């Protein structure tokens, strides 16, 4: 396969209520990504935007940010889903042979709509929506089943929250950087059993952008690319009632394919750092298992061992993860950007020493219906 790399990355800060409208957030992230790449909009052959009509409160929401994304006179297309999926599509457009460079932008203003109503609306209106089911209460169902399957406890989930919020203290872009204890998490407000407030990611605003290039396109930029070594995505059934919620077979499939492409045999050993989509604390150990970092039911042991803390065998979410800022659609792209910064050695206080190979993970749909896994390396 032709090589595709990430040559520039840009992010806004992540906050609860940002003043800037979506187009300004996109312009900021895209400007930063191009500056980081050491190039300008003239070097970009095509653009992918990532947006969702319900979150933006507009029909064909991608149209509203195209000017700000630099689309004037360029080919532009859109993904409605996580930014990792948008990046995957941006890569495909290069691999199609039509383009040498792609700018991918994602944005979210979670503060402008009502999260429960918007995520309720992702469920089937005929048989499910009238329950009031939303992202959080469905996550509670999955957490419950995962506990039963794996023996993981609420304390184990709390450990994830403690670790990631602590890591966020080293990330100036994070929204919730905190020193908290397992006891703090356990006694935080009950949201939907077994989830408490500190098991849940916040509502966030922000934007992110990446510049992709093949070897030919990368020569246009001053910065050197971090190469995509492996990437794959896979989706499970739409209805929660058709899925085994305690496991993540779509993640196993996606990560397995990405590992194979990247030549990774033992991900726990071969990866130096991982950024995973921990929208809720329980997801992190569950995704460990899905990715083969731990055997089935062994996610709790990995978190208990400290192996995924900073300084451990495989630090997971040095950025603070999604628990520390959750701009939906942007969050997976933020994971990818963090992975790139780690491989470059530019992750500042959250740098994992000597990181050469990093994993980034994004999800779509309730309870991780679809997963996208990137392996990037120097």
């Amino acid at each position, binding site marked *: 396969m032709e090589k595709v790399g990430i040559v520039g990355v840009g992010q806004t800060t992540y906050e609860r*209520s*940002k*003043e*800037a*409208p979506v*187009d*300004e957030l996109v*312009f900021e992230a895209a400007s930063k990504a191009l500056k980081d790449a050491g190039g300008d*909009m003239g070097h970009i052959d095509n653009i992918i935007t990532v947006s969702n009509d*319900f979150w933006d*409160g507009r029909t064909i929401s991608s149209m509203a940010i*195209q*000017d*700000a994304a*630099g*689309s*004037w006179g360029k080919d532009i297309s859109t993904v409605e889903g996580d930014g990792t999926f948008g990046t995957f599509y941006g890569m495909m457009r290069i691999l199609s042979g039509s383009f040498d460079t792609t700018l991918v932008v994602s944005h979210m*203003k979670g*503060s*402008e*709509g*009502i999260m429960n*109503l*918007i995520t309720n*609306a992702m469920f089937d*209106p*005929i048989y499910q929506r*009238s329950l009031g089911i939303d992202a959080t209460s469905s996550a509670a169902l999955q957490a419950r089943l995962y506990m039963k399957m794996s023996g993981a406890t609420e304390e184990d989930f709390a450990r994830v929250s403690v670790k990631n919020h602590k890591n966020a203290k080293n990330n100036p872009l994070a929204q919730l950087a905190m020193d908290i204890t397992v006891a703090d998490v356990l006694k935080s407000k009950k949201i939907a059993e077994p989830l408490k407030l500190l098991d849940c990611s916040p509502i966030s605003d922000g934007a992110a952008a990446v510049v992709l290039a093949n070897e030919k396109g990368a020569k246009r930029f001053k910065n050197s690319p971090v190469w995509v070594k492996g990437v794959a995505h896979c989706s499970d059934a739409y209805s929660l009632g058709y899925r085994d919620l305690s496991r993540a077979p779509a993640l196993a499939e996606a990560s397995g394919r990405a590992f194979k492409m990247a030549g990774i045999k033992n991900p726990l050993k071969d990866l130096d750092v991982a950024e995973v989509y921990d929208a809720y604390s329980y997801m992190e150990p569950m995704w460990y298992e899905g990715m083969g970092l731990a055997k089935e039911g062994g996610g709790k042991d990995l978190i208990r061992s400290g192996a995924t803390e900073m300084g451990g065998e495989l630090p997971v979410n040095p950025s603070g993860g999604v628990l520390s800022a959750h701009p939906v659609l942007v969050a997976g792209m933020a994971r990818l950007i963090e992975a790139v910064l780690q491989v470059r050695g530019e992750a500042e206080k959250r740098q994992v020493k000597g990181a050469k190979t990093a994993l980034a993970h994004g999800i779509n749909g309730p309870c991780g219906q679809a997963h996208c896994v990137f392996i990037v390396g120097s």
Partner: protein
Amino acid sequence: MTEQKQEKELLAISSGDAAQPFRWSVGKHGSKFLAELRDNKKLFGVKCPKCGRVYVPPRMVCGRCWAQMDEFVPVKDTGEIVVCTIVQFSFVDPNTGIQRPVPYGYAFVKLDGADTAIPHFLDSTDPDKVKVGARVKAVFEEKRTGSLMDIKHFAVL
């Protein structure tokens, strides 16, 4: 909630009164534009540092030049119709829930000093007056709240 359709038992589920409210931030540029309109009945655009176009209402990015715009310039409350129509079908205004009486006219109006056009209502449904190129002038509401609807309509001169 279940509606029975015709005699063939083809059922459907109604959304009922479901609503999705939003609160869209208008940013610094939009805030200045709307506040000047509300407080002073003044209209402002923003000028692109590269191509010199004046955008009304002001936005931060000139898409054509992919440049940030920060220079506010006043524009007049008079202008001309760029394009217009007289609407003959009735609909419920999604912003007010009120059925708008028909016919009514609306247009995109290029204010004097601006290079882009804003949409608004016209005071006339006379096809001899409501024409591309016709001169118009903003009529302001007495009570203004910080929205483009602080202009009541444009009077066709």
